[in-house]
Structure formats: structure tokens, C-alpha cells
């Protein structure tokens, strides 16, 4: 599904990632974990086209997608969410999700401004589609609230609903549980599993180990810009190198 091949990223002399490779299987939830500064977010930014890597390649379903901008990746079915949720704060919850359907609609500037019959029927379709994703995320009752006024946990759900509206085949989530309380985290875990069961491949960076061990099919561990280990949650929990990296080496 998604293959990271020998990615290296150097920021003005600092090597953030060095020769990182791994593959994400279709229909899996893959967790990327590691101590702070391991390069997890950098890796996400490279995969999602926000940074361009110094060297290495990213393949999506066998095709080289390195260096493609995020808007092209969205059309290829790859979306992401952000650690500090990036909502359209002045727009309503519903409108946020409607923007998510941008790639699934095509009415242009003139057609929209002249309100051609075609643009009107498309607008209906977008509106109905948005309702479906609001229901999925359980935030239908907040549809007409200005998203900037949402509590953090609801904002997170909105960001997920909005990303799902793109109808992606793969979804990358940057610390989805950050800022959530334990109850919200539990619900999030269920939601992510539901997303996987819809056939969407999920990759997530996360610090909440309980969540990661609970929902991930595979885990990749990064440390100081290198891949330290890869395996099932059980294998990772028993890996001595991983334990050392997290708890500090005992000489």
C-alpha cells in the first residue's frame, strides 16, 4: 500500500531522518512510535508532501509519489490530520466537512457564481454527503456551530470527519489522542478501528502507548532519526532495544 524507501532528511546539517524504510500493509493500522525528536512528524510531513526529502522515495500502491504536493496526494487518496488540529475556524462544522468533499466535486468559479443548475445539484450532493460524515463521527448536533468554538475533543472528531469526506484509501494521523481525556481516547480507538474496517489503511504517530498497543496491527519504532524496530505490538513490547530507547540504557 504505502512504502517508505530509504528516506533521509537533513535540515541544515541536522539529520532528522536517516535511511528509514518500511512498508504499510493495506487495511492495517500501523503505528509509528518513538521518543521525542525521533523524526516521526518529519516523516509524516515528507509522506504527505509538506516537506521534500533530501533523498529516498515514497511509493503509494507501487507508484512513486515523492515530492507531490498535498493537494495532488489528496486526489490519489492520501489524507492526513494534524497534531494541533487545523480547522477552518471561522466556518461551521458542516462547512468544514463540505470542504473535505472538494475533490469529489468540480463546479468552477463561474459555474458556482452563476448558479447553473448543475452547480445547484452538486451543492445538494455535497450537503448530503457532509451529513453522512458528521453522523459517522457523531457530531451531527454540532453541524451549525462555528468550528473555532468547539472543544478540543470535538475538534479532533471534526478533523477526522473532514478527512474522511475526501474518501481516502489511506489516512495518516499525527498524534490523534494528544489533548484528549481517557474517555475520549477510548472512543477514538474505536473510531479508528471503524475507519480501518471501512477498508481505509491507517498510519498514526502516537505517544499514548495503551492506545497504540490496543489498536495497531503493526508498529514501527523510530529513535534519533533511524528505524529501531518493526513488528506486532507484542514483539515491540518484548524488544529489548526498544525498551532501552524509552527507558534509557542501563550500563
Amino acid at each position, binding site marked *: 500500500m504505502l512504502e517508505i524507501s530509504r528516506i533521509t532528511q537533513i535540515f541544515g546539517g541536522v539529520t532528522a531522518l536517516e535511511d528509514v524504510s518500511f512498508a504499510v500493509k493495506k487495511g492495517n493500522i500501523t503505528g509509528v512510535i518513538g521518543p521525542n525528536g525521533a523524526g516521526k512528524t518529519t516523516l509524516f510531513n515528507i509522506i504527505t508532501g*509538506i516537506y521534500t526529502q533530501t533523498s529516498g522515495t515514497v511509493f503509494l500502491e507501487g507508484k512513486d509519489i515523492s515530492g507531490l504536493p498535498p493537494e495532488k496526494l489528496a486526489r490519489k487518496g492520501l489524507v492526513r490530520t494534524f497534531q494541533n488540529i487545523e480547522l477552518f475556524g471561522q466556518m461551521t462544522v458542516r462547512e468544514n466537512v463540505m470542504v473535505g468533499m472538494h475533490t469529489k466535486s468540480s463546479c468552477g468559479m463561474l459555474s458556482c*457564481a452563476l448558479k447553473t443548475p448543475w452547480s445547484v445539484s452538486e*451543492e445538494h450532493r455535497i450537503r448530503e454527503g457532509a451529513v453522512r460524515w458528521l453522523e459517522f463521527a457523531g457530531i451531527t448536533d454540532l453541524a451549525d456551530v462555528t468550528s473555532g468554538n468547539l472543544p478540543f475533543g470535538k475538534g479532533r472528531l471534526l478533523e477526522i470527519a473532514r*478527512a474522511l469526506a475526501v474518501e481516502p484509501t489511506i489516512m495518516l494521523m499525527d498524534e490523534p489522542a494528544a489533548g484528549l481525556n481517557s474517555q475520549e481516547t477510548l472512543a477514538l480507538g474505536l473510531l479508528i478501528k471503524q475507519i480501518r474496517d471501512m477498508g481505509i489503511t491507517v498510519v498514526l504517530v502516537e505517544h499514548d502507548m495503551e492506545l497504540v498497543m490496543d489498536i495497531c496491527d503493526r508498529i514501527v519504532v523510530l529513535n534519533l532519526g533511524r528505524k529501531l524496530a518493526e513488528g506486532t505490538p507484542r514483539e515491540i513490547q518484548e524488544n529489548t532495544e526498544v525498551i532501552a530507547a524509552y527507558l534509557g540504557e542501563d550500563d
Partner: protein
Amino acid sequence: MKRELLKFGVFAILVLLAPLLFSGGYLMNVLVFVGINTMLAIGLNLLLGNAGQISLGHAGFFGMGAYISGILTATYAWNPWFAMPLAAVVVGLLAFLIGFPILKLKGHYLAMATLGLGIIVFIVFNETVDLTGGPSGLSGIPNLTMGSVTFDSDVKNYYLIWGFTLMIVLFAVNLANSRVGRALRAVHDSEVAAKVLGVNTSLLKVQIFTLSAVISSLAGSLYAHTMTFVAPASFGFNFSVELLTMVVIGGLGSVYGSFLGAALLTLLPEFLRAAHDYDIIIYGGLLMLMVMFMPGGLVRGVPDLFRKLFRRGKESGHA
């Protein structure tokens, strides 16, 4: 959606009936300018209020529309109805080509680049004397005609200009409540999130910049044909700033706010004439107060004010 249609209906009826109330010649002339400025403010608001991109060069696009139309009709005897769309196409094409490099800039840098653009255009108007008549202006621009009607009086011009203005209002309202309008507002709030969701933000910014320039050019052509005379002084940096003020005072992102801003800034100087030499101080003071106490613009500030007054009235009623 129904509410938008109702708002537009009420607005259109008020516009059509206004001449019955203010049939005095001079005020009609001022109201023609309110119409032209409303078009310009709406055009700029699409860019600034929706997409969050600033332009300090819109007087330049306004001027280009006026001059291209003026020169083609006055010097080359074109039919104004052909000159106006040609001017719009030329200005649109220019904005599209310039838009790609300059809209890569953000914030202050974009302001500087568009400011430079406006200044260059202004210099061209002044210096190409053979073409534009230079600082003393270009005269002899014909009025528009429709069948046997020539738009040569204030009342006729009022209906001509406001006919176009109403079309632009409807156009902008539709756009704001559409897929494209949402994408524009998304760019304003979080460009990176808009990109991740598949919005080609750089192209969209150039497109809205172009549309905004085309609307300004159309307003410019109409200005030239109603005034029958244009001079560079109308298209300088001052006017770009005035347009920006209209948009901010009226309410960023609001189509009807653009009208309120344009109306206030066009009418206020006329009413303040009575205050003679102090008019500019009152004018400046009012603008400062507005920005301080109504940061959302007239369109949001005035209803808020009424709500507050009403509530206070009710409370004192109980006491």
C-alpha cells in the same frame, strides 16, 4: 439559501426605489459613485475577505479598465459595448500572469508587491501622454447607449450602474455560498489543511485575484463611460487605500458589508462638506472609532449595537 434570495430581493427593491426618494440631481450623481465603489469593494472583498489575500493595487486594475475602454472608444471610435469586455479580458489576463509570482508572497510582502504594481500602472497612465493624455487626462469618452437610449443623465446612469452592481452582488453572494467560496475561506483559515483536503490553493488564489481584477476593470470601464473623462489622479495609491478601508469598515467577507462600506466612504465626505475645514478631521476620527469599536465592520457591528441598546432598554424598563 432562501434567506440569501430574500436579502437580495429587499436590497434590489431599495436600490430601484432610491431615485424616487432622492430625486435631487447632485445626490443622484453621488449615488452613481456609491454603485461603482460597491462593485470595486465587492471585487476586493472576494480577495481580501474570503481568501485573505491583500491587494494595495486595485486602483490600478480600476484605472486600466477605465483607460482601455476610454482609449478604444475616444481615440479609436470603438463601440463601448465591445471595448468594455475587451478591457476586462486584457486586465484579467494580466492579473492572471502577474498573480502566479506575486501570490506566492504572503502578508506584508504581498501588500508591497501589489502596491508596486499599482504604482507602476499609475506611472504608465501619467507618462504615456500620447495614449492616455498624461496628467491632464483623457476626454471625449462616449456614453453607453442601448437602442435609442443614451446614458447621459444622472438618473439613467444610476440605473445603468446599479444594474451592473446588482448583478455583481448576486454573483458574489452565489460564489461565497458555493464550493469555491468555501475553498477560498478555507485558504484563509488554514492553507495547509485546505491543501491536504485537495484544494489547489495556489491556483485558487490566482483565480480569485483575476476575478477580482476583472470586476475592478468592469467598474473602471463603466466609470469612464459615465464620467466621459478620466485622469490618473483617480487611480492612485490613495484610492487603493480607500477601497481597502471600504472593505474593512463594511465588514470583511460580507457582500452587503462592501456596499455599506462603499456607501459610507462615498457619502460621508459629501455630508461633511458642511463642516468646512474640519471635515477631514471628523472623517479620520470616525474611521478610527469604527475600527476600534466595530472590528467586524458595519455589517456585524450595527446589529450588535442595536441588540445591546435593546437589551439595556429592556433592563431599565424592568427597574
